[in-house]
Structure formats: C-alpha cells, structure tokens
C-alpha cells in the first residue's frame, strides 16, 4: 500500500524544508564576513542578497505549520530529499550573481556538487574568483559533508519535533551517544579535530612554499575541508596540482582516510578500542578494496610507460585510488591524461574505486565498503548452504561494531542499493555516450557524479549540454541520499499528481 500524503503532510514538509533553508541562509554569514574582512564589496552584496532571499523564502515556508510539529518517517524521508535540492537552490544564489558562472543552472550544479561533496565544477575563471566565493564553495562541503540535517540539528534551528526522524532519513545510523543532538555534536567534534590539525599542517606546507600568511591559512582551511569532507573543490583551476608538493599530497591522503572512516569507528578509536579497526567487516572490505585497486592501478600505469620509475607510478597511482575511493576527487592530472597517460587498466581501477566508495556513516559516497563486505559474505553463505546437507542450518556471522548474524533482509538491502548505484552509473554513462562522448569517459564521469567523487575526464565543463548537467545534478543528489529518500519523493509526487488528475476527471 502506498502512503498518501494529505494537505497537513505537505505543510509539515514545507515547515521543515523552510527551516533548513533558513539554516543555509544563516550559514552565508561565513562568506559574508570573509568578504567584508577582505574588502570584497561586490561579493559581500552577493551574500547579503543570498541571505535575505534564503531567509525570507525559508521563513515563509516554515510558517506553513506550527513549530515543533511532529514528523513521521515518510515525511522525514521527503523533507530530507527536498532539503538537499532546496539547500542547493539557496546556496546557488550568491554564486550565480558572482559573474563566474554561465547560468543559474551552472551555479546550481556547483551548489549541489558542493553540498553533496562531489567536487565536479562548472565555475569559470576560477583563478580570478573572489576569496569569499571560494570560502562559500568550500564551506558547502563542510555543511553537506556532515549532512545538512546534522548541521541543522546541531545548531538547533527549531528541528526538535523531527530531529531523530530526519537524522535517520538522511542515511545516518550512528547512535554513538544516546541523544541525537549529542551525537551530531560528537560528529562535529571529530570534524573539528581533523580540520584544526589539517589546517595547521597544510598552513605550514603553504608557508614553506612561499605563500603569503593569510592565503596560506585560507588555502589550508579550504583544502582540509574539501579533503576531510571528501569534497574535492580547489581554489585554483589546477586543483591539487597547483601546489607541486608531495607533502601536500601526503597530508591530504591522511585527511581522505579520516574522512572516509565510519563515525562509529572514529568513536571506537576515540574510546581506545583500536582492535575494532582490524575486526570490522567494513574496515576490512575497504582495506582490501584499496589494496587490490592500488595493485591494478600500479600494473596499469607501468604498462602505459607514461610514468617512469616506481616512485612516480606509486605517487600517481596511490593518490588517485585514494582520491577516487574515498570520494574526494582531488586530482594531480589534467583531464586528457586519464585516457592517454593513465590507460585502460589503471583508469578501470579508478572507476571501480569510485563506484565502490568508502565507508558508511562517513562523508564518502559510492556503494560503500560495508555493503560490498556483506555481499561477499552473502556469496560465501550461499555457497556454504549449497554444499551442506539439506537439513543443515547454515549461519553466516560478521563483525560490525558487534558480532551479528547475516540475514536475508540485510543482504537484500545491500543488493538493492548496489543495483540502484549500478543502474545510475550505467544510465548516466549511456546518456553521456549518446551525446557523443567516448563511452569510457562518459562512464567515468557518470560514476564520478553518482558516487559523489568529482574526478573528471573533462566532460564536465560549462559548454556541456544542459540536459547532461541536469542528469549529473540528479545523480549527485540521488547518490548522496543513496536513492531511497529521492525515490520516496518522486513516488509521492507521482501519487499526488495521479490523485489530482483523478479528482479533475471526477469533477
């Protein structure tokens, strides 16, 4: 049976979506202050306008229902799906007026890419972009990386009535601390530790490169949040290649690993239980993935002979496998080098790394190591069952935070998400190919969008077809929500439309 939404549900959904839009508007105070401090007057007005429009629209929506209206599971799913689109529509406003985007659609693309921590970009003339706009682009990684709902719940912008429902609907299952507000604050605390340490380390690197102090700090902060939140934006058009520094690459790999680690594992490590890292099925699956893909990538790079010597091959191979698998998307290659220098096998390894993704309950995208681990265990389970006598009851156990039995329900859920991701990867690739892009490049770009990675073969650029921009926007949105919330939204809209049409016919 399909749950039908009534007018009251629509008001409740509008109320919570409005509050989240107000939250995005208030977050614009960060780039606004940056602009004022750096005397970037026109960008400051962009953010004043963005704040004004977002807060006005958000408050108007929020008034459609009384404060603290209870939020049921279905409505929470729809609010969550809508929140990412609404937040992107709001976040795109100041970018669209910056003069560095060809259209509002391009700005929306970047806002969605920033919030979903994808990192694909349509910005033009990035090397001349105002620092405050760079602050906002990177700040969207921080807001989205933690989860828009997590961000909103932790600053308590009036979501009390539906905090827990929204939190679960956003695809987060950490119950690190008994209270959802405390849990979200723990997530922010872990993030703050990484951001402070990363910013300090990269500031030292930048100062050593001869960058001026304020720029060193800002670049370090942006690189840290873009890496830890597995985003991938950079303040320069050359992305990570701009710094010409292996130390920069090394520090960012550490941050990528921190960003892809499940927050429950962070909590265990924080409590001193380091053994969990080695026993956990997800950590094991992720480690095996990375190791196998690094080997494939190394063999592939050695075969192309574009890169000479083991250190060179390892530096390029390891960096891009980590960047792809954690969903970060920093790259030290030019787009055309993927096909010409990286070659078939290594490029295939990068596509698989992107598709598989990092760990659940982290900022990483993709199918996720936990699901791959469960699917692998499931295959072993079925093989064992087929070899056992008919009367035997075969159980398969796995360890994820505690010892559990693998059930059909868990396995079905993992397979369902796996299939949805694969469907999205292939569909996006075919649409790209239909526009005349080489199938390998089109598949690479599609996987990068749906797995929220951000590596690019160059298809993503302001001149690309508008429909393909929309396809990638939907892929980034769907990938971040792991499909279910978005499918719930589309299904609700379809049912509402059908009811309306039926109502008209009967009238």
């Amino acid at each position, binding site marked *: 049976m399909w749950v039908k939404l009534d007018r009251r549900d629509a008001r409740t959904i509008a109320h919570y979506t409005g509050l989240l839009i*107000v939250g995005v*508007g208030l977050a614009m105070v960060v780039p606004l202050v940056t602009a004022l401090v750096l005397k*970037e*007057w*026109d960008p*400051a*007005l*962009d*953010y*004043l*306008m*963005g*704040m*004004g*429009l*977002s*807060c*006005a629209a958000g*408050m*108007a929506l*929020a*008034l459609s229902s*009384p*404060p603290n209206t209870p939020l049921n599971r279905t409505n929470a799913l729809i609010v969550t799906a809508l929140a990412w689109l609404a937040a992107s529509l709001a976040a795109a406003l100041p970018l669209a*007026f910056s003069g560095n985007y060809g259209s509002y659609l391009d700005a929306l693309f970047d806002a969605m890419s920033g919030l979903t921590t994808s990192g694909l970009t349509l910005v*033009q*003339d990035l*090397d*001349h*972009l*105002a*620092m405050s706009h760079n602050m906002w682009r990177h700040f969207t990684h921080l807001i989205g990386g933690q989860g828009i709902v997590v961000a909103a719940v932790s600053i308590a912008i009036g979501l009390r009535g539906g905090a827990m429902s929204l939190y679960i609907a956003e695809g987060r299952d950490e119950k690190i601390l008994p209270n959802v507000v405390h849990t979200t604050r723990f997530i922010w605390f872990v993030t703050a530790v990484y951001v402070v340490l990363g910013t300090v380390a990269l500031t030292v690197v930048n100062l050593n*490169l*001869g*960058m*001026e102090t304020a*720029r060193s700090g800002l670049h370090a902060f942006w690189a840290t949040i873009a890496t830890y939140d597995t985003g991938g934006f950079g303040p*320069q*058009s*050359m992305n990570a*290649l*701009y*710094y*010409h520094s*292996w130390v920069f690459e090394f520090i960012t790999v550490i941050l990528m690993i921190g960003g892809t680690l499940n927050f429950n594992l962070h909590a265990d490590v924080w409590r001193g239980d380091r053994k969990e890292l080695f026993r956990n099925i997800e950590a094991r699956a992720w480690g095996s993935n990375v190791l196998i893909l690094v080997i494939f990538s190394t063999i592939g790079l050695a075969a192309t002979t*574009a*890169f*000479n*010597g083991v*250190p*060179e*091959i390892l*530096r*390029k191979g390891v960096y891009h496998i980590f960047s792809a698998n954690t969903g970060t998307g920093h790259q030290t290659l*030019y*787009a*055309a*080098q993927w096909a*010409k*220098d990286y070659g078939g096998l290594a490029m295939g390894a990068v596509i698989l790394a992107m598709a598989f993704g990092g760990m659940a309950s982290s900022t990483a995208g993709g199918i996720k190591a936990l699901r791959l681990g469960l699917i692998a265990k499931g295959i072993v389970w079925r093989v064992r069952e087929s070899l056992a006598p008919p009367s035997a009851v075969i159980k398969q156990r796995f360890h994820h935070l505690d010892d559990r039995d693998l059930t059909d329900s868990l396995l079905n859920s993992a397979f369902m998400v796996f299939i949805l991701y694969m469907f999205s990867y292939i569909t996006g690739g075919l649409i790209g190919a239909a526009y005349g892009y080489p199938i390998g490049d089109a598949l690479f770009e599609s996987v990068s969008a749906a797995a929220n990675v951000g590596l690019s073969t160059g298809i993503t650029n302001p001149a690309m077809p508008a429909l393909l921009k929309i396809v990638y926007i939907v892929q980034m949105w769907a990938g971040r929500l792991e499909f279910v919330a978005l499918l719930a939204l589309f299904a609700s809209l379809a049912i509402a439309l059908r009811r309306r049409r039926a109502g008209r016919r009967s009238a």
Partner: protein
Amino acid sequence: MRRVFTSLLAICILGLLPATALAAETIVDVTPAEMASVIEGLDGSTVRFSGEVVSEALRADEENVWLNVLGDGVAMGVFMPAEYAEKVSIFGDYRHNGDIVQIVGVYHEACDEHGGDMDVHATELTLVSSGTPREQPPQAWKGVVGVLGLLFALLQSRRFRRMKDEVVT
C-alpha cells in the same frame, strides 16, 4: 697534422650547423590548453607559449620556483630559476589581471624530476605586458534585495515565535 685538424674542425662545424638550425626549428608554439590535451610527440620538446601568471610564485627548492601560467582557461606549472620569476610583479587574482609572460622551455608530459606531474621547465621568460587592476564595482541593488529579504524574514520570525508561544500555552 694541420690538415687533419682543419678537416676535423670543418666536420665539426658542418655537423653542428644543421643541429643548431634544427634546434631553432623545433621550438613548438603551443597554448597551455594544447599541452594539457596531451599532444602526441610533444613530450620532451622545446615549447613556446604565452599566458597570464596567476596567484603567486611557489618555492620549489633553494634556487627554483613554480609559476602557474594561465592561457585559454588552462593553467600550466612552469618550473624555473627564481631570478626569472623576479620579472613578474603582478599576479592574477580577484583584483588583478596578472602579468602576461612568454615562456620558452622543455615540456614534460610526466616529469621524472617532479613525481610524474605535467610541467614545463623554462629556459627563458619574457615579460610581454604588465598586469592591470580588475574593476568589480559593487551593485547596490543586490544590497537592497538582501536587506528587504532579511526584514521580511525578521517579521516572519516574530510571527513564528508567536505561534511557538501559542503552541506552548
């Protein structure tokens, strides 16, 4: 002996002349975008290109720096002795269009010296033109829209608070 020496000298001169002429011919005019698109056979060639120097000179080692030169929307890392970079006074950023320079150097598709990064090792830098300030006049209407929006939101938030109080009572 003298005849042998003269003959050897003549051979050397004749041998060197075409080599020098060939070297002069093999300077390839490109753009950073063309280099980034990985042109077949360009690796190891001496190239000449122009572009805007963006952001800053980054220290590579005690004697060398990196300049990032932007042309056709693509920036290319150029490795060079620090004294070359001293000719550049304005770097491109939000407030400036940077100096335009012409670079002659050796193009590496995957530089062995720099971890496989694509780069150019400059042998010559010529300042073509000086950078200029970029005008970004503030557009007041954006401020007006912003203030009106915030005022509207403030009024709505008072209504929201009243609703909240009603719910509590």
